[in-house]
């Protein structure tokens, strides 16, 4: 029995038909096997010849992780179900198209970066606000070798979520220091982040909401 319904498959084929390039998608999984993530990715790869699926077994017992694109900067940690499925699909479709959906102001910010950005976005599959935050981080990572982004399913990574005190989603954490709660718009997040980075503040935790005018 396939996981995706016939209606979903039809809609996904339609999305995939806009891809111009082949995208490498790598699934890293524990010795227990590729599990639901493997099944979902297998079904997606069966709907287009634009996905090259690579499976990488790992000796570590950790939940699955997925990386989109050969550069490895766009990552997804956990099973891509619920709203997280749409985040993964968007990352794949974006990678298969040329250009970027980011605004000119965001491109300028990324272009001027002098330190690398490592973005983590914590999410749950039942959170309709989450894809907005996850997709923005992924798009920033896809646009520049200075940025990498992981969308993390908080319940499957309780230790990581606990270490970052996640009690609500989406929670965006940049370079382990700057954090943003909720789904901020692209303009608001990028403006607040650039102001916070320029402020030279050295606190261990900086809430980006302090930098929204």
């Amino acid at each position, binding site marked *: 029995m396939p996981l995706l319904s016939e209606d979903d498959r039809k809609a996904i084929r339609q999305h995939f038909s806009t891809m111009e390039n082949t995208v490498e998608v790598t699934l890293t999984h524990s010795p227990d096997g590729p599990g639901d993530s493997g099944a979902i990715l297998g079904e997606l790869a069966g709907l287009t010849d634009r996905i090259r699926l690579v499976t990488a077994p790992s000796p570590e017992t950790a939940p699955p992780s997925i990386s989109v694109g050969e550069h490895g900067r766009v990552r997804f940690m956990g099973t891509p179900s619920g709203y997280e499925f749409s985040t993964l699909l968007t990352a794949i479709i974006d990678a298969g198209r040329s250009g970027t959906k980011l*605004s000119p102001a965001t491109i300028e910010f990324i272009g001027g970066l002098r330190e690398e950005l490592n973005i983590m976005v914590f999410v749950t599959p039942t959170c309709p*606000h989450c894809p907005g935050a996850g997709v923005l981080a992924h798009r920033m990572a896809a646009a520049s070798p200075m940025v990498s982004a992981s969308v993390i399913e908080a319940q499957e990574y309780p230790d990581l979520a606990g270490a970052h005190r996640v*009690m609500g989603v989406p929670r965006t954490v940049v370079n382990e220091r700057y954090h943003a709660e909720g789904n901020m718009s692209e303009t608001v997040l990028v403006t607040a982040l650039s102001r916070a980075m320029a402020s030279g503040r050295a606190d261990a935790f900086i809430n980006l909401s302090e930098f929204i005018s």
Partner: protein
Amino acid sequence: MEFHLPPDNSGTGSVVDLVIAGGGPAALSAALYAARYGLGHIVLESWQPGGQAALTALIENYPGVPSVPGAKLSGIMRSQALEAGARFTTETVSSVEPLGEGFLVRTESASHTAKTLIIATGAAPAKLGVPGEDRYYGRGVSFCATCDAPFYRGRRVVVVGGGDSAVKEALHLSGVASGLVLVHRRDTLRAEPRLAQRLLDCPTCEVRWNSTLKAVTGDEQGVTGVDLETPSGLEHLDTDGVFLYVGTKPATGPFRGLVELDARGAVLTRNIVETSRPGVYAAGDVTSNGFRQVVTAASDGARAAWAAFEYLEDRRQN
């Protein structure tokens, strides 16, 4: 396992008869009708597929669909609109300017020119404005039980509010939390009697009547308690989370100056969907219309699309 599909991302701008701003039940219904009327249209929706309807685990009062997760109901509405030929793009409307014959609708990444506009941008949760509310947002203060309930398994939560959303989401949270206190400023719940009774019967739930939240308290890790004003004086309650359902704020920022708003900031309507400006219609929770439900938003959306169609037909004939 549930799978939600991504919205579409064309985002290159367009020239159309009708722009529909929003992505909740009102916009989805307007899109279905606009597509069936053959109107050249585009739906501009920000990244919150399904709107507020998607923020609730179960909807039991949408006619024809006995009991359905909110996200699923809006997913069905979207598929039906797509099937009819509706066109969506993920863009947040930032401003609208009247042009000679229509409107210039600007988003973060593109511009659209339209002869008519339907405002269906709904509403966002209102804040209380008490100390600690902003500071602990995301660290114990939440406006979304479906998103954040998993973090409160076996923990204590406080829910503030007494309307349908507060009571429904309290019932959802009571399924995971070890104990729940509903704080309500009146002496009876405003929620549907059927929902209210379920809450009063819930063995792990308590209600603090005639009480208001004065402050959210916490430490470096997050929320640890709340201060309440109750009929017997100030009370401190220990809690791990606070969920706020104290009303909503209409999402009318981009339309200020374009159409008349009421004191709450909602689009003032006449005949349900007409605004102060010809060619601009409004539907659903963004309007001053009294009752705010999925069924009323869907109904307004249909009326607004019809009104836009009639307006365009009149112009074509004259």
